[in-house]
């Protein structure tokens, strides 16, 4: 079963979340990353995600399997957008089910942190002033 997916169109969180819930699951932690209308004070008008799908799938699955091994969780999923994404749309979703809340939170945080740090997806922001650029964060910079 695939636990990490790229989606080239808006997707609905509800069925993904429901698929994670079962009678053993006392806790569900979710994270959603939304496209903001600003970045460091500049007005953002459009966003595009480039990805290397084969490697992103492999690395995304690896991240989730690490989380399943490290934390006492029942299941986890992640979906990340690919291509053009509008302001106010969902860019990334992570869901984790577990018997207890501590593990659910920790695994959810681990997955989004590692996906942002390792999965080959790149964001290109277009600004209201006509400028645009790919985001290639410095390795030493604080993760956002």
């Amino acid at each position: 079963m695939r636990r990490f997916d790229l989606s080239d169109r808006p997707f609905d969180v509800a069925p993904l979340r429901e698929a994670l819930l079962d009678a053993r699951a006392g806790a569900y932690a979710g994270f959603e990353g939304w496209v903001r209308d600003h970045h460091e004070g500049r007005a953002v008008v459009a966003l595009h995600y480039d990805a290397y799908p084969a490697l992103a799938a492999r690395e995304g699955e690896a991240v989730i399997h690490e989380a399943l091994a490290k934390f006492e969780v029942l299941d986890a999923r992640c979906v990340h957008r690919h291509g053009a994404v509008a302001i106010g749309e969902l860019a990334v979703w992570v869901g984790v089910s577990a018997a207890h809340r501590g593990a659910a939170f920790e695994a959810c945080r681990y997955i989004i942190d590692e996906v942002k740090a390792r999965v080959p997806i790149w964001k290109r922001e277009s600004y209201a002033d006509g400028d645009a650029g790919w985001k290639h964060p410095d390795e030493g910079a604080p993760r956002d």
Partner: protein
Amino acid sequence: MSSVRLTVLYFASLRDAAGRAEETVQTDAPALRDLYAHLQACHGFAFPVERLRVAVDGAFASWDEAPRAGTEVAFIPPVSGG
């Protein structure tokens, strides 16, 4: 030193700089590191090799690996998903 033909993929700002998403390259570079150095000079890539990772056929690889014929090589600039 044998010469091999392989495909190179470019993403994000590397694609903008190269002006293409992929190209076929004939190379006698001994390692992927040298292949990048050559293409960096061709296309004027800003990234030093230390800021990139390299992947071969959809899996991360070592810069010390020799380029292999028929493979798909990708230079991975710092990622910014999420």
